[in-house]
């Protein structure tokens, strides 16, 4: 029997993207597509929200896929197999609305590709014609392409530098796709990725009048509606992403506010990261 919150398997999926299989049978049996957990790695770590990329009710394992960015994600990415994560709380947030919409497009950008996987699977299972569009800066940043292909009726790749597939952003590809395929009748789009990507996708789909769901990733502390750190504005109203979301109608989201609020602690994040990498270097030198 494994310890609760033990890292069972660690894989490096792409440059700076690490995938962790973690043993937590309670969360694994409960988690549904679109939900997240709040993770605190060590006693003095931050509490950070991470979308559940996969969960196996039988294996008791949840998968978290992490992009190395600030100190907290660096720590997670540097974790060794066997280590026990101090705290994981969840599953939190509302799950993705899954039903047979007819034709749906699922768009994932960067590390945001990971949480689209369970949605792609569930949408396919519900009987949808699933169009999947993945985007990354370069071919090196692409993850889960083989798995996604299996469950998608159409599968497209975009890279900013054109190192694979369409050269450009997913929003550019989508715009061209919609122009070329006016008869597709896409009834719903789910877009997960960086805020700017989701905003660009929404700009395209608003013109095309296609309902678009985005998964927001604001800064959180408790993740249970207690602090209001994660407030976002949707249709002019303040919402708490942790309990009212994380998914919202993208056409109603104030992305500028989201991006502003994501940058609150830029300065502190840099201080933290500098200190961490410095220590890390010192240790390596020793």
């Amino acid at each position: 029997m494994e310890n609760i919150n033990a890292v069972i398997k660690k894989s490096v999926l792409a440059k700076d993207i690490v995938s962790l299989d973690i043993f937590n049978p309670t969360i694994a049996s409960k988690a549904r597509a679109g939900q997240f957990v709040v993770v605190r790695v060590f006693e003095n770590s931050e509490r950070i929200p991470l979308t559940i990329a996969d969960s196996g009710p039988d294996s008791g394992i949840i998968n978290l896929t992490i992009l190395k960015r600030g100190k907290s994600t660096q720590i997670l990415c540097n974790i060794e197999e066997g280590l026990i994560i101090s705290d994981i709380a969840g599953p939190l947030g509302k799950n993705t609305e899954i039903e047979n919409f007819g034709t749906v497009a699922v768009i994932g950008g960067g590390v945001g590709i990971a949480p689209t996987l369970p949605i792609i699977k569930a949408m396919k299972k519900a009987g949808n014609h699933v169009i999947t569009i993945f985007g990354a800066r370069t071919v090196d940043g692409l993850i889960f392409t083989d798995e996604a292909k299996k469950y998608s009726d159409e599968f497209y790749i975009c890279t900013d530098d054109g190192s694979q597939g369409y050269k450009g952003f997913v929003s550019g590809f989508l715009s061209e796709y919609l122009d070329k395929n006016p008869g597709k009748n896409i009834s719903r789009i789910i877009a997960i990725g960086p805020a700017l990507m989701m905003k660009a996708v929404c700009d395209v789909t608003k013109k095309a009048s296609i309902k678009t769901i985005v998964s927001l990733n604001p800064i959180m502390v408790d993740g249970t509606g207690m602090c209001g750190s994660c407030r976002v504005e949707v249709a002019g109203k303040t919402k708490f992403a942790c309990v009212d979301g994380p998914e919202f109608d993208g056409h109603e989201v104030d992305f500028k506010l989201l991006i502003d609020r994501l940058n609150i602690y830029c300065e502190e994040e840099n201080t933290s990261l500098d200190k961490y990498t410095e220590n890390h270097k010192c240790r390596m030198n020793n």
Partner: protein
Amino acid sequence: MQNEQLKPKKEKIPRTKISEQDAGLRIQNFNEVELGYSEEEAVRESSRCLMCKKPRCIDGCPVEIDIKSFIAYIKEKEFTKALEKIREKNSLPGVCGRVCPQEDQCEKVCILGIKDEPVAIGKLERFAADYAKKGSSECVRENKQYAKDKVTDNDSSSKKIKVAVVGSGPAGLTCAGELAKLGYKVTMFEALHSAGGVLVYGIPEFRLPKSIVKEEVEFIEKLGVELKLNAIIGKTFTIDELIKDGYKSIFLGTGAGLPYFMGIPGENYNGVYSANEYLTRVNLMKSYLFPEWDTPIKKGSVVSVVGGGNVALDSARTAKRLGAKKVYIIYRRSEVEMPGRIEEIKHAKEEGIEMMFLTNPVEILGENGWVKKIRCIKMELGEPDDSGRRRPIPVAGSEYDIDTDIAVIAIGQGPNPVLTQTSPDIMLNKKGNIITDEACKTSKKGVFAGGDIVTGAATVILAMGAGKVAARAMDEYLRTGKW
């Protein structure tokens, strides 16, 4: 009358002042403000007690501590026995001695208080609790023995009965402790990574050291309570799943965990915090120790706190300790209507917190996404409202701006809906609070509730009182099966 005059007059001892960290010094640290009584001071203060035949103080205590007896023990220097006496009724003496509003409860009705100042019951309670903590190993051992006796004493048949307590704040801790003493197998579920609820995320270190909370939680665990952290009822498990899992009765003490905002323009600018977030970052996540601890907090040299309660005072005093040069409390009524404790208002003033009374924010103005100013309007007091306090009325055309780097909104908290959303058979009032009868019974069989989730944001001791009432009612329900 004449007879009375003939009696030798008892020497009047003034209420013993508690020593405090100097204001200039304490705003530079997060250590506790009040330093506590020494043994002599405690004995002297306890000797002021008149040992009334009918002690009114006990009626004034929501958890009915035998105040007269514990004070008598302190007078006799039987400090451990004093603590045991308190613990008969109160599982959290170190907490209550510090944060209970004694001036509105036990001390309010103290006979001495009519002509003089009441006995410092709260300070004495704190002394008894702290004595055990730092006291001799004998004392600690006796307390451990007490915890053990309390469990083994009980009817062993009830031990196999599983009961659940949701939330590990004051209400949950008390309820769990009482149920454990009655011999039940208690599991306490906590959503956060640390037990204590508002005692750990809300009340600052300088008013309630977290080591005290930790010890009191450990005491509850020693009584046999199993603690499950990171378990969000309504998400990780639902109430119905707990019932299915064999919990025969459930207590909900989930607190007032939903911050209210004012609903004015600009509240989502960077630098605007709910008091819940501000205090949680500092207290639970220890952001005052950043970058040694990873959670950051925005400091700013001018911090404005909106609200007049203890949470507002805690936020303002926290801001000062984080290094703010100017800290304002913006409150729409006047000082006499402030719901914060008098002692804490005094402490805040000593620390240089500037109070802006009869002032209400109408808009938050920002620049590049960050808060810059709070636009306020002057208020005047009109007729009393439902709360009995005079209603504040805006003075037309009196708007003015206050420059600020950080704004903290501390205007109250509501019931967190995460649990109740998944249990539609638990009836709520319009505000979202759980409806219960006087025995803390909800509309769902076997499920009880108490504390802020029922009353709306109130005090630690009232929540504890409810936890206690609920534990008794749960015991009765489990013994008789009657609902």
